[in-house]
């Protein structure tokens, strides 16, 4: 025990990283086997399943046709947005504000989830070779997922939004004042949640009209306005200046199979 304490931190970090690199191919392989078995499972789908999928597809096609009818309208909307973006960038440059946060998005598949009561992480099948860096933001289809905390050559570890060490600047939709978001674990039953702190006293959500918490561009790792979760109730802080509350995060966060990693452009 004494020898272990005497070891320099660099040696411990190196050993830990070696163990992680050693484990990465195992999780990669098991994840691929899982995908393959899924594929084979679908190959032997019954006629009923195929008919149901066909029906679903025809609904999607009809929705697509409806969208095509709106093509002219949407093209005009795109033009309007482009003009607004140009105006905004002109304004930014006139006050020397560099707000142009451009991100590239890389899709990666999750290989293993490690979501204990004390720490929530997942491992993905892409790493340094794909240009990832520690701190890169990660999104899923319902909003923000987490950020990269360890990047190895062919795998990376994501600190999930619910992790108690995950802290970012956020704000409520339609309100620009910054607040602090912190992960607060996953309850028994799989309900993920976080905490929102430093909320101005005039914010009053209710179960009928919850407030949507979104990302802020101040942190630099996420674009502005990505959903984090919903706040139904706020309580007064000890000092009486700010409020705190529970943030309800989409439960799909614990079942995600693919995520999008935001790398700097």
């Amino acid at each position, binding site marked *: 025990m004494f020898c272990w304490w005497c070891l320099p931190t660099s040696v411990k970090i190196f050993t830990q990283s070696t163990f992680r690199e050693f484990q990465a191919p195992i999780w990669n392989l098991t994840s691929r086997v899982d995908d393959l078995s899924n594929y084979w499972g679908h190959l032997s789908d019954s006629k009923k399943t195929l008919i149901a999928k066909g029906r679903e597809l025809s609904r999607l096609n009809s929705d697509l046709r409806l969208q095509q009818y709106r093509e002219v309208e949407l093209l005009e909307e795109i033009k309007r947005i482009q003009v607004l973006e140009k105006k905004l960038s002109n304004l930014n440059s006139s006050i020397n504000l560099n707000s142009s946060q451009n991100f590239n998005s890389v899709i990666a598949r999750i290989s293993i*989830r490690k979501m204990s009561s*004390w720490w929530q992480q997942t491992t993905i099948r892409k790493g340094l070779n794909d240009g990832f860096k520690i701190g890169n933001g990660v999104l899923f289809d319902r909003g923000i997922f987490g950020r990269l905390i360890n990047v190895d050559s062919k795998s990376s570890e994501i600190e999930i939004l619910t992790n*108690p060490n995950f802290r970012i600047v956020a704000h409520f939709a339609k309100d620009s004042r910054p607040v602090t978001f912190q992960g607060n674990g996953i309850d028994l039953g799989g309900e993920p949640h976080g905490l929102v702190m430093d909320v101005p006293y005039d914010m009053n959500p209710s179960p009928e009209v919850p407030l949507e918490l979104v990302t802020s561009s101040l942190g630099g790792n996420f674009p502005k306005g990505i959903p984090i979760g919903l706040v139904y109730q706020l309580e007064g802080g000890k000092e009486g200046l700010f409020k705190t509350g529970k943030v309800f995060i989409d439960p799909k966060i614990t079942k995600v199979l693919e995520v999008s990693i935001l790398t700097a452009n």
Partner: protein
Amino acid sequence: MKTKNKKFIFLLVINISTICLLTLINSRLSTWGIILFLPGLFFFSSCILLDTPRGMGICVITGLFLDVIYNTYFGFLGLAFPFLHILGKQWLKGTINNKPWRPVFFQLGTNIILSIAWFIILLFENQLNMKWEMNRFLYESLIASIIFIPICFWNFEFTMQIIKMTCNDNLKTINEYERN
């Protein structure tokens, strides 16, 4: 010497394979907010099958491997396992009653002690207002303990069968291991 090294390698492979299977199960269970914290499964076989230097070696490797998987402080299980290895050896020397459930309950006891130790460490560290309440800890420990017992019986039998097949070892029960 050759048989001892062979046992060391096979035991390490069995431990790592079981840990990987357990991690895959935990990966699925985590969607319901449950995790099986079962480090107590992985030190006792080495007490029976290996001498102290090799046993300690396996315990350190397995412990560090588990530290990375469970995200405990790197070295927490890596240090606890060699200590438990010595404790297990002493327990084997001292025990007279050799009913098969006794080592299982010994391992269950160490598993609970490790869980409590980890809980206390995090409680004293007060990691950024982390919410791991006492009742949640008790639920998780209870679920893990219930599942631990059958897995422990299976793991022990499986390890013995593999070692018997691969190392041509005639050892069959804990009783016989002790006499050797």
